[in-house]
C-alpha cells in the first residue's frame, strides 16, 4: 500500500519544482556572478581584486568580522546561560528582546546609532567634545555589525540548553567541580556544535552586512569602505567587472561558510549515529 502523499505524479512534480526553482533563483545567479567576474579573463579579475581600495575593503570587512565574533560569542553564551539556568522576573521579556535585531531593518539600526553616537547625537556630542569619533569610522561599523549579529549565537544555544537541562551541571557540582570547571568540562562540550554553528552564521552576516553599515560608515574609500559597500560603489562607477570581482569574493566567502556548516552538520549526524 502506498503512503499518503506519495503518489508518483505528486512526487515528480514537487521534485521538478524544487530543482527548477533553486536552479533559476539560486544556482544561475551564482554562476552568473563568477561568469561576469571572469568575463575579461583571469588577469583583469586579479587586477581588480588586488586593487588597493579593494584590498583595503577586504581587510576592513574581515577585521570587523574577527572583532564581532568574540563579542557575540561571549554575549551569546552569557545570555543563553542566564535565560536557561536562572529564573527571574522578566526572563521571557528578555528572550523576546534578543530578537529585536532580527525584527528591525538594519537601516533603522544604522540610523539609530547615527542619532545616538553621531556628532550631534545625544551621546555623540559628549564624545565629540572629548575628541572621540565613532560614526563614519571603523568603531561605528563594528558597533552596528555587533548589533545586527548579536542574536545568532544566543538563538542557537537557548533551545539546546533548554532541552539539555542543568542536570549534568548539577552532577558536576555535586562531584566537587568549580563553576569554571563545570562550564569548561561539562557545558561547553555539550554545546560546542551549536556554538560553532552560531559563529558561522554570525560570520556570514558580519561579512555581508550592507544596510546598517552603509548608514554609519560614510563609505570613504580606503578608510571606511567595507567589501559590500565597495562593491556597490564600483557598480555605480560603471566598473561592472570590478563589482562582480568583489561579488565573487563575497560569494566565495558565503560558499566556504556553507561548506563549513554542511561539514558540521555531517559530523553532528555521524556523532548521533555513532552514539
Amino acid at each position, binding site marked *: 500500500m502506498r503512503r499518503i502523499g506519495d503518489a508518483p505524479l505528486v512526487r515528480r512534480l514537487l521534485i521538478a519544482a524544487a530543482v527548477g526553482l533553486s536552479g533559476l533563483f539560486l544556482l544561475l545567479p551564482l554562476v552568473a556572478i563568477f561568469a561576469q567576474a571572469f568575463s575579461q579573463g583571469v588577469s583583469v579579475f586579479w587586477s581588480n581584486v588586488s586593487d588597493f581600495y579593494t584590498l583595503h575593503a577586504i581587510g576592513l570587512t574581515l577585521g570587523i568580522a574577527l572583532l564581532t565574533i568574540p563579542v557575540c560569542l561571549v554575549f551569546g553564551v552569557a545570555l543563553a546561560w542566564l535565560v536557561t539556568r536562572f529564573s527571574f522576573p522578566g526572563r521571557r521579556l528578555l528572550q523576546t528582546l534578543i530578537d529585536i535585531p532580527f525584527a528591525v531593518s538594519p537601516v533603522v539600526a544604522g540610523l539609530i546609532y547615527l542619532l545616538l553616537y553621531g556628532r550631534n547625537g545625544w551621546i555623540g556630542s559628549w564624545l565629540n567634545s572629548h575628541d572621540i569619533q565613532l560614526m563614519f569610522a571603523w568603531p561605528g561599523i563594528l558597533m552596528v555589525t555587533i548589533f545586527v549579529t548579536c542574536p545568532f549565537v544566543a538563538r542557537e544555544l537557548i533551545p539546546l540548553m533548554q532541552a539539555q537541562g542543568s542536570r549534568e551541571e*548539577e*552532577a558536576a557540582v555535586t562531584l566537587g*567541580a568549580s563553576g569554571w570547571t563545570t562550564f569548561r568540562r561539562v557545558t561547553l562540550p555539550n554545546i560546542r556544535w551549536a556554538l560553532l554553528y552560531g559563529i558561522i552564521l554570525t560570520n556570514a552576516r558580519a561579512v555581508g552586512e550592507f544596510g546598517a553599515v552603509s548608514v554609519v560608515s560614510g563609505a570613504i574609500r580606503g578608510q571606511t569602505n567595507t567589501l559590500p559597500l565597495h562593491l556597490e560603489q564600483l557598480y555605480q562607477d560603471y566598473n561592472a567587472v570590478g563589482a562582480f570581482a568583489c561579488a565573487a569574493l563575497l560569494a566565495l566567502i558565503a560558499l566556504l561558510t556553507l561548506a563549513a556548516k554542511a561539514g558540521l552538520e555531517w559530523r553532528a549526524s555521524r556523532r548521533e549515529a555513532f*552514539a
Partner: protein
Amino acid sequence: MSIRLDNIAKHFGATQALEPINLDIQEGELVGLLGPSGSGKTTLLRIIAGLETADHSPTPGRILFGERDVTHVHVRDRRIGFVFQHYALFRHMSVYDNVAFGLTVMPRAKRPSAQDIRARVYRLLEMVKLEAFANRYPAQLSGGQQQRVSLARALAVEPDVLLLDEPFGALDAKVRQELRRWLRHLHEEFNFTSVFVTHDQEEALELSDRVVVMSNGRIEQIDTPETLYRAPQNRFVFEFLGDVNYLEGKVHNGTLTCGDAHLAVDLPDGDAELLLRPHEIRLAEQPTPESHLPVTITAISPVGAEVRVELEADWLAEPWLATVRHADFNRLALRRGQRLYAHPRHWRRFPEATENAEVQTHLA
C-alpha cells in the same frame, strides 16, 4: 556520617513545598523518603544535598552532617554523592571519564595520582560489574547500566552521604528489582549513610532501614517498614502503603449495615467507615451470623503469588479487591460472575477527630 535536619522549611514563591521538618538519620542508615508526587520528598533530598536552599525566615533551619554544620556549605564542599533519576551522566565522556570526573576535578594538592585514579575507577567499575564497558559512551548503555555508572561516579569521591533521587524510577520492573538488591548489598558492604527518594511503596519497604512517609510537604510517619505496615499512624499512611477496600455504613446495636449487607462490629452507634487490605478478605460460599456481605466476582487476575479478585455489589460504592491463595482459588473454583460472601478477617478505622487507628481483628 549521621544527618540531622533541624526546622527545615521551603517555599517556592507563595507555595509551601515543605513545612518545618525535623529528621535524624543515624550513621550507616538507609532511609527512604516515600510519598506521592508533590509531597516534597525530592525537595527535601535536594536541600540535604545543597542543590536547593531551605528558607531563612521566619526561623532559619540547620543541617548537620555528624558534628559539621553544613547549612551554609556549598554543594561542592558538602562531600555528598548524588544519584539522579535520569542518571545525568556526562554524555560526551566515556564511562571511565564519567567515573573519574570527581577525582580529576579535585584541587591539585588533594588529587590522587593518575595511576591511583585509574586503579580506583577500575575498582569501582568492577564493583558495578562494568569493567568491560570503560570505553563506551553513556548512550551505548542500557538504563540499568547507566544508573550503575552514575552510582560508581557518585561513590568515586568517597562521599560522607549518598543521596539518590528516584534512582530506579525510570527502569523496568526486572532491572529495578535487581538493582535494589544490589544497592542493599552495596550498602551493607560499605555502610555509608544513604537517603533515597521513591514513590514506590514496595521499593521503600523492601530497601529501607526506616521509611519517612511524606505528603503535602509534611512528614506523616517515620518508622521501620514492619511498624509502618502493621501500625500506620494515620489514614494517609495506611492508604499510601497498599490497596485499600472501603466499607461505609451505619452502626446500630453492634451491627454495621449497608444496603443488604451487615457486619457485627464493636462500635458505638452512628456512621462508620472501615478500611481493609485485600488480603484481609476471606471468600466463602456461606454467610455467618456475624458477617453477611454478598459479592459478585467481576474480574480475576491469576498472576503472581496470589490471585487478585475484583468484587462488586449493590451496597459497594467502589469495587473491592481481594487476594486469594492459589490453593483456595482452586478449592473454591472461583470464576467470573460467581456470587460469594466476603468475610473480613481484620479491619481498621481512622476516626477523623482522633487520627488514631482503631483496629479490630476477626479471626475467621
